[in-house]
């Protein structure tokens, strides 16, 4: 005699390990999900512990306010981080000057003027631009942008802040463009129609209605892009140089926080030396900079979100 389906189901329901599985799965998944939290904790603990070791050898005041970064000196090592911060900020400033106008202008074009077809072509191109590895950008900065700049302005050195700045700018354009475009596209169509029906030109709609309405999203995209620029490593390592200076000269060799970490990692500064610990102190400083930026971006987009 054949058993009915319901009977078979009843039999399998009785199995113990199935119930056990149903209970265990959420626990296992929770443990997996907590890996990301552990990662953050790992990052913070690593940076803090090693930085503390560093500060047992170098005073915090010297580190924060010193204007000379001379870790490889044979006589007296100096760890004043300001030159590295200045180097980072120089590159970031140039990047922002390049990327913000171009990124926002393309966002406006894509969201307000471009036809569906154009958008379908341009957006993937921007995605590709965003997917190019930074090492490729770095190579481009060193072998193309720098010589090009030098042919126009001979006073620019082979390593400088301008060339990597421009290329970091190119790298963050897609980020600003696509995040700003998202913010502008989410402004409802009826609001644009309201403005057009009053006799506004498309430019007036974009500039006086859409951009102000999407401003929180646009600013957040800029802040996030700045955070990316600050943490960018390979472009500045290849094209920025490795001589940290405390001055306002953009044409001369610099060193950023990230490039310093690369420089030490490439060499063979032994484990346990002050130089070894210094990369954690610099990394921690970098981490704080980018975290502040990310928190600021989150705050801006929440606090100033327009209702419509």
């Amino acid at each position, binding site marked *: 005699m054949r058993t009915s389906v319901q009977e078979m189901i009843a039999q399998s329901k009785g199995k113990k390990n199935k119930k056990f599985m149903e209970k265990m799965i959420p626990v296992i998944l929770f443990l997996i999900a907590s890996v990301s939290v552990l990662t953050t904790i790992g990052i913070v603990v690593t940076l803090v512990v090693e930085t503390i070791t560093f500060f047992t050898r170098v005073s915090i005041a010297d580190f924060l306010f010193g204007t000379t970064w001379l870790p490889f000196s044979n006589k007296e090592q100096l760890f004043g981080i300001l030159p590295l911060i200045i180097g980072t900020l120089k590159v970031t400033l140039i990047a922002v000057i390049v990327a913000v106008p171009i990124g926002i202008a393309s966002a406006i074009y894509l969201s307000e003027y471009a*036809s569906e077809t154009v958008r379908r072509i341009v957006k993937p191109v921007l995605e590709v631009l965003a997917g190019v590895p930074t090492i490729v950008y770095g190579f481009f900065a060193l072998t193309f942008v720098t010589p090009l700049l030098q042919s126009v302005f001979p006073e620019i050195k082979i390593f400088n802040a301008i060339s990597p700045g421009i290329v970091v700018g190119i790298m963050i354009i897609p980020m600003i463009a696509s995040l700003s475009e998202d913010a502008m596209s989410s402004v409802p169509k009826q609001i644009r129609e309201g403005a057009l029906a009053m006799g506004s030109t498309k430019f007036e709609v974009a500039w006086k209605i859409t951009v102000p309405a999407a401003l929180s999203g646009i600013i957040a995209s800029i802040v996030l892009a700045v955070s990316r620029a600050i943490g960018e490593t390979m472009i500045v390592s290849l094209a920025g140089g490795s001589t940290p200076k405390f001055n306002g000269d953009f044409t001369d060799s610099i060193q950023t926080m990230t490039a310093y970490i690369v420089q030490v990692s490439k060499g063979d500064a032994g484990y346990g030396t002050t130089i070894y610990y210094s990369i954690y102190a610099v990394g921690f400083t970098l981490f704080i900079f980018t975290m502040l930026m990310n928190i600021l971006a989150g705050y801006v987009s929440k606090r100033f979100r*327009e209702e419509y």
Partner: protein
Amino acid sequence: MTMTIKAEKKKSATKLQEQGIKVPVYQTKELNLWYGEKHALKNIDLDINENEVTAIIGPSGCGKSTYIKTLNRMVELVPSVKTSGEILYRDRNIFSSDYQVEELRTRVGMVFQKPNPFPKSIYDNIAYGPRIHGIKNKKILDEIVEKSLRGAAIWDEVKDRLNENAYSISGGQQQRICIARALAIEPDVILMDEPTSALDPISTLKVEELVQELKEDYSIIIVTHNMQQAARISDKTAFFLNGEVIEFDETDAIFSNPSDKRTEDYISGRFG
């Protein structure tokens, strides 16, 4: 040059009006419109007079919204739209190549189905139009804002909160803000595309009363799916069906004595 001619026309028009002759603001001649392959408006001929409320009724998809959006060329925002025939606004063909849509739209205001204030303060919403037309003087702007809000019968409700976001007030109030926004550029004609369809009955009543008042100074064309509304507020009514004008007459005549069987069926609620 053209300006003086226009002014002359306006003067003679007023004269005609005094003699009881209706002056058309819009004359639609042989208008056809296609969305891609779809023939949405077929051989429309309609004259719309000054200082009247013209209602356009018909079942959904009959082309009434398309028609009103053609009057200020907003329909062209749909990429695949093609038109033939002409629409004369104050004797000028709005489709002619030297007629800028922006100019047309400053003469013809529009109120939409859903209230669509700008995400700005109430004040900035009203001042938006005058500002793009170059008015920067704060005192004049203040006056325009007050006059427009009074015109839209909402001044008393919002005068103390002009700097609040326009989205902080109720939907009915938002719609009157949108009407005030249209009034601020002192249009000649106001197009209303189902302006009360998203509103509650009380707000609807307020907007209807407002339409009656605005008629004194403006020509109003209103699309509505609500036949009682058309009967209450309009002077003339056009009945659209499948992209054609079936009947166009005095509202009283349409509702009491329709000449076309289809109009009668629609009005008596047999379809739609």
